[in-house]
């Protein structure tokens, strides 16, 4: 599959339907079985993929509808992490979790999610995982001497998983690290851990770094300047950053620092229900083209569409696709 110039995609999650939220709660309240829930998830994934295709995206994900939040889906699969399953009041809450010993090497079982996605789309696909820095911030560490040591072991386990995903056919992988912006002081060790995670993984890997999207709200404010120059040591192909909500000022960092990264430019604000016009999207892309050539840009929303109503998310993705087409046309493509 060849991607067009300025490929379009989503960050990872698609809109979580209200009915699915209620069914997740029903599962926690033991009103439906795990088997029924899995069937419901399968149907929801197919619907999410279909919506992305219909909107016209070049690269789709499974919509992450199986995941309760950014963290728990991975934490409950990580060997050696203890979870208090009574700690959630709502499905979207984070589990209380801890490590009290060394994390053993074992599979996380993510490959079947990827294979399911591949069964239901002909488009290029992307598989997204939450990175070790973010996971480390949500696990109470009662064993390792520091956060970096815990994150390093998580990265080793997940590295094995990424290799399994590549073996299963995954060509595009995204690592979500939303907590970088909340803990800028960690950036040096976080990049070291990132490089352990992606070591010898033969895929197009990008890192998504935003300012948080918990409950559809930003968790932090600031500038991406903290990433530089440390992030330039990351052995990944690209970054995806949010620019629609925050404005394009930080794009100039890519003029100031000579990186080789491709850049996923956030051109859709996922923290408002107002739907962008294609022209607004095009304007964001034109701004990015002032600092990077089109071959190094792809377009996507600022962050996951998890908190948006489905109709709003769909309309925003349509605007994303149409706005990108306007610019492709301007570029003669």
């Amino acid at each position, binding site marked *: 599959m060849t991607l067009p110039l300025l490929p379009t995609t989503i960050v990872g999650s698609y809109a979580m339907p209200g009915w699915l939220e209620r069914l997740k709660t029903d599962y926690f309240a033991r009103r439906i079985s795990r088997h029924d829930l899995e069937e419901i998830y399968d149907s929801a994934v197919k619907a999410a993929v279909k919506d992305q295709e219909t909107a016209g995206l070049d690269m789709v994900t499974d919509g992450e509808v199986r995941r309760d939040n950014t963290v728990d889906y991975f934490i409950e699969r990580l060997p050696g992490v203890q979870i208090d399953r009574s700690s959630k009041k*709502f499905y979207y809450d984070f589990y209380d979790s801890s490590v009290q010993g060394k994390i053993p090497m074992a599979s996380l079982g993510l490959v079947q999610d990827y294979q399911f996605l591949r069964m239901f789309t002909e488009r290029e696909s992307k598989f997204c995982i939450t990175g070790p820095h973010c996971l480390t911030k949500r696990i109470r560490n009662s064993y390792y001497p520091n956060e970096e040591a815990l994150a390093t072991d998580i990265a080793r386990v997940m590295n094995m998983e990424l290799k399994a995903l590549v073996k299963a056919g995954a060509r595009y992988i995204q690592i979500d690290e939303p907590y970088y912006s909340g803990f800028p002081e960690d950036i040096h060790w976080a990049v070291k851990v990132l490089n352990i995670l992606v070591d010898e993984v033969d895929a197009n890997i990008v890192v998504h770094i935003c300012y*948080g999207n918990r409950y559809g*709200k930003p968790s932090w404010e*600031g500038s991406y300047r903290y990433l530089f120059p440390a992030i330039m040591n990351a052995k990944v192909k690209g970054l995806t950053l949010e620019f629609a909500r925050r404005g394009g000022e930080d794009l100039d960092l890519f003029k100031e620092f000579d990186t080789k990264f491709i850049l996923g430019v956030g051109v859709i604000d996922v923290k*408002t229900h107002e739907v962008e016009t294609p022209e607004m999207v095009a304007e964001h892309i034109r701004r990015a083209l002032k600092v990077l050539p089109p071959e190094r840009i792809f377009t996507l929303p600022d962050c996951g569409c998890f908190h948006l109503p489905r109709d709003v998310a769909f309309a925003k993705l349509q605007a994303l696709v149409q706005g990108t087409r306007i610019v492709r046309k301007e570029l003669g493509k």
Partner: protein
Amino acid sequence: MIVKLNHLNGKSAGARAQVVVDTIYSLLEEGRLEHEQFARLQIELDWIQYKQNFREVVIASQGYTPRGEHLPVLDVLVDTRQVEPTTLRADMLKALARAGGPDRSQDAGDPDHVMLEEFRSLRHSIVWEFNKLYWGRLNLWQAATGKGYEEALPGGQSDGHQPESIADSVCDFWTLLRDLESQNQLPAEIFILELGVGTGTRCGIWLDKFLALDRIRETNYYPRLRVLLGDYSLATLDLSRPAVREHADLCSFMVLDAMNPLKTLSFLRHKILQVHSTNVYDNLPDEEVVRRDGRLYFVQVRSYIPRAEAERIAVVFGVKVEKLRASMHRILQGGFEDFGSVQQGVAFWQEIWKAIRLEERLVLLEDLPDFPFPEGLDASKLDDILQDAPADIRFHLSSGALESFMNTMPLLHPRGYLQVQDIFVTDISQYRLGFYGPGKLEGSLLNWVNGALLKGVAERAGYDVHFVPFRYRKGSKTSVLYTTRRE
């Protein structure tokens, strides 16, 4: 029959409750009440703390389907503060007849009532037009009564002005700024919003104290403050200006809808570090819901003036009774001069407002997903929140307050917080212990806020809501709501 004895005041409480029960039994024995009605009857005995309110001694609320079909649900509400044993029987009979007893259709209307509107949600009742008029023409009302509205408050002044409370608020905010600065995250402009400005006194004191603290600690935050004073009444905003005169350079006055500040301030989305309001939520349009036998009923109201009162007012102001409704609408549109003079028009307004009562009926919420719940609340969320609530309960939806909350939170900076001083029902079971409005306070309308429901909605929107009793004035019924981000 279920009799609920809510908070009853005074030594005569037991005797008055007994009179009500005796009266009901005698009506049953005389065949004035059907056995089926009696079996399903629910009687609530309240002590209405608001001397000015919308209730008769007895009101009865009949249940209906949305298509107007009679349902065998009947609630009788008795205000024991007003009960007179000698007239209770007659009052009870009238109320039952009005509610749509066996020989009356639901919309027949009572010849003893001069109707001002048809049945509708309280939120859409004309009483809120009066509330709006009061805040819009506060100067006229105050000139007529010779006292400011704060003098009508239970403590004679607003809890919002309590200096110690304001000093604590200033310290909390300064600490937040210091913390943000230490993390290199303090914005160049520090936005705060006062939602509902009152006399402006609180904001003036707050800024005085902030300036003083900032000078003592030499942090130089004060010049970076951007203070937004928002109110839906231009008249109120104008009245508040003198109180913040010393800080005029920092202040912007904005007419905005307290239920949707985001509409006016969307350019400040995620930028405001503190939003404060005092006694705003209790004055926002509201409605009530009844849960009975596992089903939800919506309380619809119809405002009226008792005919005897209407005739008296008509004589005083030289208006025919049948023209009262039209005259009332002229007043609501600000036509005070139509009564000969502004003073005469204001006097008419005050008399009408004092006389207004509400009839009510219960309408089954059949198709919950289609019911227009306020933003942030839908049928399934309401069901979840009510899961642990008592089975039979009547409560405020606090829809105006919920809307305001949901349309304010997006304005907050990731580290910002909302602080609301108001009268809250913090546990839904409190609704079984007493009456929480609506009442009248001068020309305005007052409802306690369903804090328990608001907390449930907030949790699902990513905020933990905490209530702290207002500790700065003994006997205060105020609580302070503040938010923290939910992780």
